[in-house]
């Protein structure tokens, strides 16, 4: 996975709509426009000039069922005033946003476009929560899996029960992730669910699918996000138009992986090793089974290799990862090599993935080594599926620009001297996963 013949791609600007339970005040197109307007205003780029400079777009949204509207992508392209420029829709379950981001990267890296807009959204409030769960569960095999009791929280619950069995992971360790992400979100005005919780609050909230409670699980959301990507030429053209210098944040690595749709079909073999690991680390571990995400490991390996990363805890300043469940955040620590397989539970409770300088009401041994989901992640921000992976890209961009205080009207979540960050987007029960590395150039 070398970058042969590819051009550097810069993340120039981004915007996110406030994520909420329901946005009946707008149809989906103007919600996306809110995110774009913010990105352009932040850049200082006049809206008419922006529409001249943008060469094309990628539309990122998951489900046609939520709106009962096919071809919704073109309706946004049209509303934003981007016709007749090229565009296409990307869909890959929960990883839709991450895939969309990488498609935008490809459009620029390949030389096809100098400026590419990636926009994403989901408006999930158009059906009731339980019908929404049914639509999401249709992203499982409708012949063999869905009819047995199609419910994603049930699938993730089975995966973490096996993780607990293999490695001794505990529900209290999972609750640490919930407390961390909900507390972080208190400082993020874009987040939907901003709560100060205790471990006990998490465990005593209603059980959804054993051992996952309401506070272990992300919520459905209405929201949009967009990221503006550019080549060196595109960036210079934007700077000429705005008369401002844009901080150089470049995408240094991308990776993707896949796994079997039915988790019952996943093999039990040897661990795929990251650059900083050895086979002897995992003697006797049958992998991935249903306790780990092989797709996440593959995506990580490719992205780290492309970006030239060694130990990610040393080489990354922060990670925004797909915590649809507290359990999957712990599983993803391992897939991304932040700790070894099996150590995710104690790693979660150690405090290393918490933000430094924030009081979580917990006794943590070591706080803030490698902040994970400083934004609050999906669990607290919400998960408007097609927007989620792009929301991560925007929050990562603001971290690397050092502009979190300006955007969040609160400096608490700014990772000090953030130089390199990873974003991770994840679909199904781990069927498509993307990892992208963003880096600030000095």
């Amino acid at each position, binding site marked *: 996975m070398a970058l042969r013949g590819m051009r550097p791609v810069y993340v120039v600007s981004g915007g996110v709509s406030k994520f909420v339970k329901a946005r009946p005040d707008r149809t989906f197109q103007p919600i996306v426009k809110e995110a774009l307007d913010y990105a352009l205003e932040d850049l200082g780029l006049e809206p008419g000039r922006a529409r001249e400079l943008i060469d094309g777009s990628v539309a990122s949204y998951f489900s046609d069922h939520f709106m*009962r509207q096919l071809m919704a992508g073109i309706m946004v392209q049209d509303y934003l005033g981007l016709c007749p420029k090229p565009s296409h829709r990307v869909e890959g379950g929960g990883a839709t946003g991450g895939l969309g981001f990488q498609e935008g990267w490809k459009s620029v890296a390949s030389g096809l476009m100098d400026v590419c807009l990636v926009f994403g959204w989901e408006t999930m409030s158009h059906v009731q929560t339980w019908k929404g769960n049914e639509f999401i569960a249709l992203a499982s095999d409708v012949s*063999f899996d869905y009819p047995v009791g199609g419910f994603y929280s049930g699938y993730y*619950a*089975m995966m973490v029960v*096996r993780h607990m069995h293999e490695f001794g992971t505990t529900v209290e360790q999972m609750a640490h992730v919930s407390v961390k992400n909900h507390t972080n979100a208190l400082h993020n005005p874009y987040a939907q669910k901003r709560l100060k919780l205790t471990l006990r609050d998490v465990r005593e909230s209603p059980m959804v699918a*054993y051992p996952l409670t309401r506070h272990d699980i992300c919520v459905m959301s209405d929201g949009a996000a967009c990221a503006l990507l550019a080549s060196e030429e595109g960036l210079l053209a934007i700077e000429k138009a705005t008369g401002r210098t844009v901080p150089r944040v470049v995408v240094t690595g991308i990776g993707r992986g896949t796994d079997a749709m039915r988790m019952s079909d996943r093999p039990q073999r040897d661990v795929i090793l990251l650059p900083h690991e050895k086979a002897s680390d995992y003697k006797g571990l049958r992998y991935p089974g249903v306790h780990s995400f092989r797709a996440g490991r593959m995506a990580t390996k490719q992205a780290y290799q492309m970006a030239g990363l060694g130990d990610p805890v040393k080489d990354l300043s922060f990670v925004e990862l797909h915590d649809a469940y507290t359990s999957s955040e712990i599983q993803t620590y391992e897939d991304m090599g932040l700790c070894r397989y099996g150590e995710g539970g104690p790693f979660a409770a150690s405090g290393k993935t918490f933000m430094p300088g924030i009081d979580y009401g917990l006794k943590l041994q070591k706080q803030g080594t490698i902040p994970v989901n400083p934004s609050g992640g999906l669990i607290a921000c919400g998960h408007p599926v097609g927007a989620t992976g792009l929301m991560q890209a925007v929050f990562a961009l603001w971290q690397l620009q050092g502009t979190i205080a300006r955007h969040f009207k609160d400096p608490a979540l700014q990772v000090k001297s953030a130089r390199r960050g990873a974003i991770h987007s994840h679909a199904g029960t781990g069927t498509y996963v993307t990892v992208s590395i963003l880096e600030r150039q000095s």
Partner: protein
Amino acid sequence: MARRQRRNRPAAPSRRPDPPEQGGGAAPSRIPETLEGSVVFRVPFPESLDDLKGMTPIVVKWPYQIDYIHSFGQDSPFFAGLANGRLLGTRCPSCDYTYATPRLACMDCGAPTDWVELPKVGRVHTFTTCYFGSEAFLSECPFNLILVEFDGVDTLFLARLVGVAGNEIRVGMAVQARFVRNAKFKPTDVYFVPRDRP
């Protein structure tokens, strides 16, 4: 800008009287008024168009119901097996890899696989109890889901576990397959119970 808007504004409709009824069976020029599909009969409307952006959104209910004609295709023998009290998987003749949930092509080597009968007893590989669910299954909550592992079989099988409380289920618990008498041609035509149950 303001001038262009004025130019584009359509001419005010003239209050022309309805055309007189024509003889010779001409098409009616008015859609008949019925109550069918009506949900609300008056909505407020402001005096000034400037106030329209502050209007409360109109939210309506759109029903959607559809019957799919779904074929199980090459997997059909699995469902025929369940209807006859037989649990079928597949095995790769080339590498011997055995699938509990049937696949007619081997994931490893791509070879066509053969149908084989699975054991009716296995163990709980992992489990959960769902207290909430998708709308289609809400009335069945709480229910137990398990992944079953079978001796000599490489992959797992998703099923319901009945006859046991959620807090009694353990990884490794021995379970036995049972079949519904009146097959529904769904994977739930087979379900599992703890092996020691009568």
